[in-house]
């Protein structure tokens, strides 16, 4: 990743992001793609309904081939999560989990969909009473208290580090951490206490959170439980840019037929845009988003 300006930055390397990269890079745009192939919904799938592949094909193979194709057109890949997005002076700036930052003329959101809730006893009942799904939104309500964060990936680790500035103690509950080394090092050097090799069995409390019961039998006495599974998703990374969501459930991003969102230079494609959650739709939308983003970036560069 070099310092200067990209034409097209793509968050997500599933089929939508890969197809966007292939089309944008083949139009000679300078393209960078973020994300982890293993975290694509497709990685463990066996696909029998994708056009022109008569025999079932492994999702992993599709992803690997797509990446090579995009690299052949000179798209760059960075296997890191994005933890922050900003839109200033017609440019998008991004920060990765290792702390690196870059700017781009356009941004294509292809983060897919992922599970955000634990689904354990007590969780639903205590939402807003100590259970939170957004460190950035709610950290301020837990000043001087003991809190726990649950998750294995970048959102949990960066969330736990953020909470150190508010809470008096922070414990991170995880099965096994899956983050880039530099972020892991920052965690190790911090005051966060890592409770590894276990998971939450139940959130305890009557009117408010009093603690969490872990699968290993231990109980942690905490006032707050931040559920931060996976990487930051649409509500965290896109809503802050002012993107309009679907009016019924606020779970997918609204686009037009050019895959444009309401923000100039910002596109979205794939599962993040809504159902059906299928590869054929993801690559179709990725193709359109890649072409449109490359053309927009070129106009901006020429202006």
């Amino acid at each position: 990743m070099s310092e200067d300006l990209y034409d097209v930055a793509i968050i997500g390397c599933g089929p939508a992001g890969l197809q966007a990269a292939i089309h944008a890079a083949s139009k000679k745009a300078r393209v960078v793609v973020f994300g982890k192939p293993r975290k694509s919904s497709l990685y463990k799938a066996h696909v029998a309904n994708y056009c022109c592949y008569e025999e079932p094909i492994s999702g992993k193979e599709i992803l690997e081939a797509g990446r090579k194709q995009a690299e052949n057109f000179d798209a760059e890949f960075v296997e890191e999560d994005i933890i922050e997005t900003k839109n200033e002076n017609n440019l998008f700036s991004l920060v990765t989990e290792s702390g690196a930052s870059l700017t781009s003329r356009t941004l294509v959101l292809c983060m897919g969909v992922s599970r955000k809730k634990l689904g354990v006893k007590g969780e639903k009942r205590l939402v807003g009473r100590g259970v939170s799904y957004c460190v950035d939104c709610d950290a301020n309500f837990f000043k001087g208290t003991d809190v726990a964060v649950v998750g294995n990936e970048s959102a949990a680790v960066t969330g736990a580090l953020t909470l150190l500035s508010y809470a008096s103690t922070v414990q991170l509950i995880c099965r096994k951490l899956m983050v880039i080394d530099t972020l892991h090092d920052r965690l190790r050097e911090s005051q966060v206490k890592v409770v590894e090799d276990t998971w939450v069995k139940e959130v305890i409390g009557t009117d408010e959170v009093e603690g969490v019961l872990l699968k290993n039998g231990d109980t942690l006495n905490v006032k707050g439980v931040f559920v931060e599974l996976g990487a930051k998703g649409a509500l965290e990374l896109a809503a802050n840019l002012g993107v309009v969501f679907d009016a019924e459930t606020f779970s997918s991003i609204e686009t037009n037929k050019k895959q444009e969102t309401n923000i100039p230079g910002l596109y979205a494609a794939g599962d993040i845009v809504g159902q059906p959650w299928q590869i054929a739709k993801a690559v179709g939308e990725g193709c359109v988003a890649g072409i449109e983003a490359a053309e927009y970036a070129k106009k901006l560069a020429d202006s």
Partner: protein
Amino acid sequence: MGTGVLDVDDNNFESEILKAEKPALVDFWAPWCGPCKAIGPAIQEMEEKYGDSIIFARCNVDDSPNTPAQYSIRAIPTLILFQDGKVVDQVVGAVPKTSLESLVQKVL
């Protein structure tokens, strides 16, 4: 058609919401909160629809910390429905619009 979403704070919460003649739906929010931004347009839309019979207001928890503390708010967005100075019901998070509709139906 209503008169727009009203901004309330720690100082005028009592007079504008608790002592109001109409029921009031208050959106506790903050500018840095993504889910709050996502539901913003839906609340404006509901204000246009129900603004004659319900006050739609929002309280920035960053500028007004006392009111959210009084209602034990620990996640945003939290939407609380008030009538005659008392809490009728509340929802937390960027819940689907159908949940917002069923919330306001409780005072219509």
